Protein backbone atom coordinates (compact mmCIF):
# COMPACT_ATOMS: atom_id res chain seq x y z
CA UNK A 1 0.00 0.00 0.00
CA UNK A 2 1.34 3.39 -0.96
CA UNK A 3 1.48 6.44 1.28
CA UNK A 4 -1.34 8.83 0.47
CA UNK A 5 0.10 12.04 -1.04
CA UNK A 6 -3.12 13.88 -0.28
CA UNK A 7 -1.94 14.12 3.32
CA UNK A 8 0.89 16.52 2.37
CA UNK A 9 0.42 19.82 4.20
CA UNK A 10 -2.22 18.47 6.52
CA UNK A 11 -2.12 19.77 10.09
CA UNK A 12 -3.52 17.59 12.83
CA UNK A 13 -5.33 18.84 15.91
CA UNK A 14 -2.99 19.40 18.86
CA UNK A 15 -2.65 16.39 21.12
CA UNK A 16 -4.20 16.55 24.60
CA UNK A 17 -2.05 18.61 26.98
CA UNK A 18 0.94 16.70 28.30
CA UNK A 19 2.19 17.40 31.80
CA UNK A 20 5.95 17.00 32.10
CA UNK A 21 6.66 15.29 35.42
CA UNK A 22 9.85 14.78 37.40
CA UNK A 23 9.14 11.05 37.49
CA UNK A 24 8.87 10.78 33.71
CA UNK A 25 12.01 12.85 33.16
CA UNK A 26 13.94 10.61 35.58
CA UNK A 27 12.56 7.47 33.89
CA UNK A 28 13.64 8.77 30.49
CA UNK A 29 17.09 9.79 31.76
CA UNK A 30 17.51 6.32 33.31
CA UNK A 31 16.48 4.66 30.05
CA UNK A 32 19.16 6.53 28.10
CA UNK A 33 21.70 5.95 30.88
CA UNK A 34 22.23 9.66 31.50
CA UNK A 35 23.16 10.43 35.11
CA UNK A 36 23.09 14.23 34.73
CA UNK A 37 21.81 15.74 38.02
CA UNK A 38 19.88 18.45 36.14
CA UNK A 39 17.38 15.70 35.24
CA UNK A 40 16.86 14.44 38.80
CA UNK A 41 18.01 16.88 41.42
CA UNK A 42 15.92 20.00 41.81
CA UNK A 43 18.66 21.81 43.76
CA UNK A 44 21.18 21.14 40.97
CA UNK A 45 18.68 22.41 38.39
CA UNK A 46 18.00 25.53 40.46
CA UNK A 47 21.74 26.14 40.83
CA UNK A 48 21.88 26.16 37.01
CA UNK A 49 19.09 28.75 36.91
CA UNK A 50 16.02 26.58 36.30
CA UNK A 51 12.84 26.53 38.38
CA UNK A 52 12.78 22.72 38.50
CA UNK A 53 14.48 19.70 36.95
CA UNK A 54 14.85 19.91 33.19
CA UNK A 55 14.53 17.14 30.60
CA UNK A 56 17.30 15.79 28.35
CA UNK A 57 17.20 17.42 24.88
CA UNK A 58 15.78 14.35 23.13
CA UNK A 59 12.94 14.02 25.68
CA UNK A 60 11.05 16.34 23.32
CA UNK A 61 10.50 13.30 21.08
CA UNK A 62 8.09 11.84 23.68
CA UNK A 63 5.86 14.86 23.24
CA UNK A 64 6.37 15.36 19.52
CA UNK A 65 5.57 11.67 18.91
CA UNK A 66 2.33 12.06 20.83
CA UNK A 67 1.57 15.01 18.57
CA UNK A 68 2.47 13.25 15.34
CA UNK A 69 0.89 9.88 16.27
CA UNK A 70 -2.56 10.84 14.93
CA UNK A 71 -0.88 11.73 11.64
CA UNK A 72 1.46 8.74 11.38
CA UNK A 73 -1.15 6.22 12.54
CA UNK A 74 -4.00 7.63 10.44
CA UNK A 75 -5.21 4.62 8.41
CA UNK A 76 -5.90 6.97 5.49
CA UNK A 77 -2.20 7.84 5.30
CA UNK A 78 -1.33 4.18 4.68
CA UNK A 79 2.06 4.05 6.38
CA UNK A 80 3.24 0.47 7.11
CA UNK A 81 4.71 0.97 10.55
CA UNK A 82 6.62 -2.34 10.73
CA UNK A 83 8.61 -1.13 7.69
CA UNK A 84 9.28 2.28 9.20
CA UNK A 85 12.67 3.43 10.42
CA UNK A 86 13.65 6.88 11.60
CA UNK A 87 15.46 8.82 8.87
CA UNK A 88 16.22 12.23 10.32
CA UNK A 89 15.47 14.21 13.43
CA UNK A 90 16.12 17.82 14.32
CA UNK A 91 15.02 19.96 17.25
CA UNK A 92 15.10 23.72 17.70
CA UNK A 93 14.78 24.72 21.33
CA UNK A 94 13.62 28.00 22.81
CA UNK A 95 14.43 26.48 26.21
CA UNK A 96 14.61 23.01 27.81
CA UNK A 97 11.40 21.23 28.75
CA UNK A 98 10.98 21.35 32.50
CA UNK A 99 9.04 19.49 35.19
CA UNK A 100 5.70 21.23 35.62
CA UNK A 101 5.39 22.31 31.98
CA UNK A 102 1.99 21.57 30.49
CA UNK A 103 2.48 21.45 26.74
CA UNK A 104 0.70 20.54 23.55
CA UNK A 105 2.14 19.33 20.28
CA UNK A 106 0.72 20.11 16.88
CA UNK A 107 1.98 18.20 13.87
CA UNK A 108 1.96 19.10 10.19
CA UNK A 109 2.95 16.71 7.40
CA UNK A 110 5.60 18.83 5.70
CA UNK A 111 6.87 16.46 3.00
CA UNK A 112 6.11 13.11 1.36
CA UNK A 113 8.56 11.92 -1.28
CA UNK A 114 10.09 8.81 -2.78
CA UNK A 115 13.78 8.08 -2.32
CA UNK A 116 14.66 5.06 -4.42
CA UNK A 117 12.46 2.21 -3.23
CA UNK A 118 11.63 4.00 0.01
CA UNK A 119 9.15 6.69 0.89
CA UNK A 120 10.14 9.57 3.20
CA UNK A 121 7.49 11.21 5.37
CA UNK A 122 8.44 14.44 7.14
CA UNK A 123 6.53 16.07 9.96
CA UNK A 124 7.05 19.35 11.77
CA UNK A 125 5.69 19.44 15.30
CA UNK A 126 5.37 22.59 17.36
CA UNK A 127 5.56 22.10 21.11
CA UNK A 128 4.14 24.97 23.15
CA UNK A 129 2.89 25.43 26.67
CA UNK A 130 -0.86 25.69 27.16
CA UNK A 131 -0.18 29.37 27.89
CA UNK A 132 1.17 29.77 24.37
CA UNK A 133 4.92 29.84 25.05
CA UNK A 134 6.83 28.14 22.24
CA UNK A 135 9.30 25.62 23.69
CA UNK A 136 10.52 23.44 20.85
CA UNK A 137 10.04 22.66 17.17
CA UNK A 138 10.67 19.05 16.15
CA UNK A 139 11.36 18.05 12.54
CA UNK A 140 11.10 14.29 11.92
CA UNK A 141 11.57 12.23 8.81
CA UNK A 142 10.32 8.64 8.82
CA UNK A 143 11.35 6.18 6.12
CA UNK A 144 9.04 3.40 5.01
CA UNK A 145 11.40 0.86 3.48
CA UNK A 146 10.18 -0.45 0.15
CA UNK A 147 7.14 1.84 0.33
CA UNK A 148 7.71 3.91 -2.81
CA UNK A 149 4.63 4.31 -4.99
Amino acid sequence: MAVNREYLGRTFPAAAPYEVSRVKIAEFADAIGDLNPLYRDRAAAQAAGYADVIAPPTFAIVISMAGSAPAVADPGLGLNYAMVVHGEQRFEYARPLMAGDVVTAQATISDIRDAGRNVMLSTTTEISTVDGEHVCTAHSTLVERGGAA
Partner: protein
Amino acid sequence: MSEQVSYDDVKPGTDLAPASYPATRLSLVKYCGASGDFNVIHWNERIARSVGLPNVIAHGMFTMAQAGRYVTDWAGPAAAVVEFGVRFSSPVVVPDDDIGATIEISGTVEEKLDGNRVVLALTARSGEAKVLTRARAVVRLP
Protein backbone atom coordinates in the same frame (compact mmCIF):
# COMPACT_ATOMS: atom_id res chain seq x y z
CA MET B 1 29.86 15.71 34.53
CA SER B 2 32.71 17.84 33.34
CA GLU B 3 33.74 21.32 34.37
CA GLN B 4 31.78 24.20 32.91
CA VAL B 5 33.05 25.20 29.46
CA SER B 6 32.98 28.90 28.64
CA TYR B 7 32.51 30.40 25.18
CA ASP B 8 35.74 32.35 25.36
CA ASP B 9 37.78 29.20 26.04
CA VAL B 10 36.44 27.27 23.04
CA LYS B 11 38.48 27.15 19.84
CA PRO B 12 37.12 26.03 16.45
CA GLY B 13 38.76 22.85 15.24
CA THR B 14 39.20 21.42 18.74
CA ASP B 15 38.45 17.72 18.96
CA LEU B 16 36.47 16.58 21.99
CA ALA B 17 37.38 13.39 23.84
CA PRO B 18 35.45 10.44 22.38
CA ALA B 19 33.08 8.41 24.55
CA SER B 20 31.43 4.98 24.30
CA TYR B 21 27.91 4.10 25.37
CA PRO B 22 26.35 0.62 25.62
CA ALA B 23 23.09 -0.43 23.98
CA THR B 24 21.72 -3.75 25.21
CA ARG B 25 18.37 -5.43 24.76
CA LEU B 26 17.50 -4.18 28.25
CA SER B 27 18.38 -0.61 27.18
CA LEU B 28 15.93 -0.91 24.31
CA VAL B 29 13.13 -2.36 26.44
CA LYS B 30 13.61 0.49 28.92
CA TYR B 31 13.69 3.01 26.08
CA CYS B 32 10.45 1.55 24.65
CA GLY B 33 8.74 2.12 27.97
CA ALA B 34 10.22 5.54 28.67
CA SER B 35 9.61 6.91 25.17
CA GLY B 36 6.35 5.17 24.31
CA ASP B 37 7.85 3.88 21.04
CA PHE B 38 7.02 0.17 21.04
CA ASN B 39 7.78 -0.49 17.38
CA VAL B 40 8.35 -4.28 17.32
CA ILE B 41 11.66 -3.97 15.45
CA HIS B 42 13.17 -2.67 18.70
CA TRP B 43 12.33 -5.73 20.79
CA ASN B 44 11.14 -8.65 18.64
CA GLU B 45 13.93 -10.44 16.75
CA ARG B 46 11.51 -12.68 14.86
CA ILE B 47 9.64 -9.74 13.38
CA ALA B 48 12.80 -7.65 12.90
CA ARG B 49 14.30 -10.43 10.76
CA SER B 50 11.02 -11.04 8.94
CA VAL B 51 11.03 -7.42 7.71
CA GLY B 52 14.60 -7.74 6.42
CA LEU B 53 16.64 -6.35 9.32
CA PRO B 54 19.76 -8.21 10.51
CA ASN B 55 18.43 -8.36 14.08
CA VAL B 56 16.68 -6.13 16.60
CA ILE B 57 17.84 -2.52 16.09
CA ALA B 58 18.08 0.34 18.56
CA HIS B 59 15.64 3.22 18.29
CA GLY B 60 17.28 5.98 16.28
CA MET B 61 16.26 8.26 19.13
CA PHE B 62 18.20 6.08 21.60
CA THR B 63 21.33 6.70 19.54
CA MET B 64 20.52 10.39 19.24
CA ALA B 65 20.03 10.50 23.02
CA GLN B 66 23.57 9.17 23.49
CA ALA B 67 24.86 11.92 21.18
CA GLY B 68 22.82 14.42 23.20
CA ARG B 69 24.34 13.14 26.41
CA TYR B 70 27.79 13.54 24.86
CA VAL B 71 26.99 17.16 24.02
CA THR B 72 25.49 18.12 27.38
CA ASP B 73 28.27 16.36 29.32
CA TRP B 74 30.81 18.41 27.38
CA ALA B 75 28.88 21.69 27.51
CA GLY B 76 28.20 21.64 31.27
CA PRO B 77 25.19 22.56 33.40
CA ALA B 78 25.10 26.27 32.56
CA ALA B 79 24.93 25.63 28.79
CA ALA B 80 21.74 25.34 26.76
CA VAL B 81 21.18 23.21 23.67
CA VAL B 82 19.67 25.51 21.03
CA GLU B 83 19.52 23.14 18.08
CA PHE B 84 20.26 19.45 17.63
CA GLY B 85 19.86 17.43 14.46
CA VAL B 86 20.98 14.08 13.06
CA ARG B 87 20.47 11.79 10.13
CA PHE B 88 20.19 8.08 10.94
CA SER B 89 22.47 6.54 8.33
CA SER B 90 22.73 2.97 9.56
CA PRO B 91 20.96 1.03 12.32
CA VAL B 92 22.60 0.08 15.60
CA VAL B 93 22.15 -3.70 15.58
CA VAL B 94 21.68 -5.09 19.08
CA PRO B 95 22.34 -8.83 19.44
CA ASP B 96 20.70 -10.94 22.15
CA ASP B 97 23.80 -11.44 24.29
CA ASP B 98 25.16 -9.93 27.49
CA ILE B 99 27.22 -7.28 25.70
CA GLY B 100 24.85 -5.80 23.14
CA ALA B 101 26.18 -3.01 20.93
CA THR B 102 28.49 -0.09 21.62
CA ILE B 103 27.88 3.41 20.30
CA GLU B 104 31.07 5.44 19.97
CA ILE B 105 30.68 9.19 19.77
CA SER B 106 33.21 11.86 18.98
CA GLY B 107 32.89 15.54 18.28
CA THR B 108 34.67 18.61 16.99
CA VAL B 109 34.07 22.29 17.62
CA GLU B 110 33.08 23.25 14.10
CA GLU B 111 32.32 26.92 14.44
CA LYS B 112 31.72 29.75 16.89
CA LEU B 113 28.64 31.89 16.24
CA ASP B 114 27.44 35.14 17.76
CA GLY B 115 25.32 35.08 20.89
CA ASN B 116 27.78 32.74 22.65
CA ARG B 117 26.71 29.88 20.41
CA VAL B 118 29.03 27.06 19.40
CA VAL B 119 28.44 24.46 16.67
CA LEU B 120 29.57 20.91 17.39
CA ALA B 121 29.94 18.35 14.60
CA LEU B 122 29.42 14.82 15.91
CA THR B 123 30.17 11.36 14.62
CA ALA B 124 28.63 8.14 15.93
CA ARG B 125 29.75 4.63 15.07
CA SER B 126 28.68 1.17 16.08
CA GLY B 127 31.01 -1.60 14.97
CA GLU B 128 32.04 -0.73 11.41
CA ALA B 129 28.94 1.34 10.71
CA LYS B 130 28.60 5.10 10.81
CA VAL B 131 25.20 5.27 12.52
CA LEU B 132 24.68 9.05 12.43
CA THR B 133 25.58 11.52 9.73
CA ARG B 134 25.04 15.27 9.52
CA ALA B 135 24.96 15.26 13.32
CA ARG B 136 25.22 18.81 14.62
CA ALA B 137 24.41 20.49 17.88
CA VAL B 138 24.34 24.22 18.56
CA VAL B 139 24.88 25.05 22.23
CA ARG B 140 24.85 28.39 24.01
CA LEU B 141 27.70 28.61 26.48
CA PRO B 142 28.20 31.01 29.37
